[in-house]
């Protein structure tokens, strides 16, 4: 799927992407007290990237992401597992949530938040892996010489 969007879609996607990503981070951070959280935020971010993909094309998305979506999955899983360890450090069973307050900005940092960021990354990574894989196969079929650009 190349650049198939219209002018309006192209322009809108460029403008919307930062806003959507900002919104997804907002949802992620407030998730513990208000509706939101890693899963929802991850879906919003995936939607944003998907829009960008449709308007700017597969190549542009790869350029912008810099990392492969599959690596995002790995990072997310790693964060999820790492967040189980501080409880161990404090002499409590695995997975016991730990809370710290960062003084100046009065921000509640915690292992559940790290875990939620892991969820976020896994969701974004998984959805993007599936979507880009589908798009790549399309390109391979339409233009067999071009299919290697992502690998």
């Amino acid at each position, binding site marked *: 799927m190349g650049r198939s969007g219209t002018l309006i879609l192209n322009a809108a996607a460029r403008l919307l992407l930062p806003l959507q990503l900002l919104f997804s981070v907002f949802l992620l951070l407030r998730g513990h007290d208000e509706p*939101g959280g890693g899963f929802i935020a991850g879906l919003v971010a995936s939607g944003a990237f998907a829009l960008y993909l449709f308007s700017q094309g597969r190549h542009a998305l790869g350029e912008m992401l810099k990392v492969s979506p599959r690596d995002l*999955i790995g990072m997310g899983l790693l964060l999820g*597992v790492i967040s189980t360890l501080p409880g161990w450090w404090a*002499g409590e069973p695995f997975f016991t949530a730990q809370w710290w307050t960062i003084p100046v900005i009065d921000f509640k940092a915690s292992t559940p938040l790290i*875990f939620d960021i892991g969820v976020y990354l896994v969701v974004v990574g998984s959805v993007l*892996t599936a979507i880009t*894989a589908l798009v790549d*196969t399309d390109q391979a079929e339409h233009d067999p010489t071009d*299919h290697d650009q992502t690998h």
Partner: protein
Amino acid sequence: MQTAVLGGFVAAAMVPLLHRWFGSRTPLVMALLPASLAVWLISQWPVIASGDVLLLEQAWVPGLDITLTFMIDGLAWLFAMLITVIGALVLVYSREYLHGHRDLPRFLVVITAFMMSMLGLVLADNLVTLFVFWELTSITSYLLIGFNHTDSAARKAALQGLLVTVGGGLALLAGFVLLALAGDSWSLHELVQRGDVLRGHDLYTPLLICVLLGAFTKSAQFPFHFWLPNAMAAPTPVSAYLHSATMVKAGVYLLARLHPALGGTDGWVITLSLVGAVTMVTGAFLAMQHTNVKKLLAYSTVMGLGTLTMLLGIGTEKALVAFAVFLLAHSLYKGALFMVAGILDHETGTKDVTAMGGLRHLMPATAIVAGVAGLSLAGLPPLLGFVGKELMLTSVLEAPFWRLLILLLAFTAAFLTLAVAAIIVLRPFFGQRQDTPQPPHDPSRVMLAGPGLLAALSLLFGLVPGLLDPVVGAVVTGMGAPEAKVHLALWHGFNLPLALSFASLVLGLTIYRLWDRLRAGLTRLAPLIRCGPEAGYDALMAGLVILADGQTRFLQNGYIRNYLVMTLLVLVGLVGHALFFRHGLAPDVTLSVYFHEAVTAGLMIAGAVAACVMRSRLAAVAALGVMGFSIALTFVLFSAPDLAITQLLVETLTVILLVLVLFRLPRFATLSTPTERLRDLVVASLTGGLITLLMLAVLSGERLPRISDYMVANSQPLGHGHNIVNVILVDFRALDTLGEMFVLALAAIGVFAMLRFHAALGEGVDRDGRRNLAPTEDDHG
């Protein structure tokens, strides 16, 4: 210590990075890990020597009584010392053995992970923790046997080892659950004090059978012995470490650990002493037909493991002392001999002892090491092996059951082992000089360090066995015999065991002289030997393949509608059964439905019906969308904003995915006959009806305590969050969420792999796979 063991796994994962920095010296760097653990263990020796048990408590899953507590008593200490010391030596040895091997980092990753698993196994106090480490050793062993993964024989041997040990592991898990039920504790240090309760319990026999199955498969006891010689496909450091000194002793360790809890009954004594004695003879006898030095050693390991099991079966104080000494002696000489075998293979280019000869002139240092270790294997003075064998024969003389039979078996094994030792040492190093594929010479000092040290220890402990008194005393205390008097000596005077030793020396050397002729005779017996337990394993595997083939054809034929029908019918059957017999089918619910709720429900029904009858795919998707958004609306109405948002977003992404796949699909056609559609209608109605009844049953009365109350009450105080859904997801039920994350990741990787595979097919790269994909393609068009 727990941190060290778990940190060891992290260190294992870091090996590729270390390899970038240290290159071929990485094995030496990794050897620091077990070496430092060994130093720590030695520093704890005063506590252990005083007869205390060191308990290092650490919670893991308190709600399920699972702890990561480590218990170090004499028994665990000896095993841990063997694991760390031999582990460090093997790593040093592998620097030369695998020098320049391109998969060296992979080897180090797995062997370090194995080392930590094994350490966790012998130190764990909790049955579940022990089991986890037990299975980890099986898995890492699988990866190590199959290290040369391009060799199909290595792959087959790896799979065989895995299936046999993991099959036994399943039995062991059942045994542990029964053990915990009978002893009312998951903790080993509590269970060993409840021996009388356990032995008198109704569950004793089934739990004993299960535990023994686990231990016997792991420790290659007859009739499960066949996997161990096949495991020699692994690189030699692995054979030296896993398949002689440590992993195969895990089963024996478990039996020794549980001896105070389960031992002493007739069933225990008869089973262990007989199985052990038969294993001894089987191992020693089957060794005779091989000329491959590693196979010879492997079969003599089977013999050694049999001896240990037999001694645990006999179970008298003398037998337990013999167990401890023999265990140490065996680990020392067998580790050394395996490493010598690796040196021979490395320097001469062959593993066949008949192709070697007169090497003592060319490899004098290796010859000395091999000679010392070989004398210990043969059980000759003044080596530790002699002390061990004398003690073993003395214990057999007081076996409570079938003394003569066991004595005969033990004596046979003793002289056959002597012959094996002669074959391994005399054949390559003495006699006529023979040309080998490579010109042999002594290896570097690094490579000789490991076997040299182990052989030296065999000699030292043989000359001054009194050095071992406190260690053996501590081990025996750990096995529940604290009063045993331990006084080891090389010379016990002229007695029956000495006479038996002398007789076995004469017989063993005679067999060595006649070995070539004997082997020719054994070749004629080969078809008979091939009918052994391994044939049973092969038949079982073949049967499994036929069964899998049949059930795949029937149940998993690639048509997703058949999968659905099957899954839904099973669901309806099971849930329906439970609902009908536990609650009855008469829900009494008075529904008060508001107008807007009725409209939403109506929309959903309309969407579902429309999706079924639409003639165009796009319209069907739109109809499903109507359903999805109505569900989101329902969530909003019942004030669950998180669920509503999630539902909306999922619907949106579904549209994106559908857009991407829609035009790739063939024309939307009617594929099923009216009869099939009628069947589908029946299944769908049954499922829908049942779920409705289930929901009504849930609503009609407070049969179960509501868990949501707990969540609502504790979300803020315990989870520090007002959003209950999120607190449940990331805190209360985080383990479930972590599982879901892995599922999601797997699904994404599955999509990726399938699409790439499919693309490759399109280009004709891999035509073989087309047959497998065909059914899914037919499904759509």
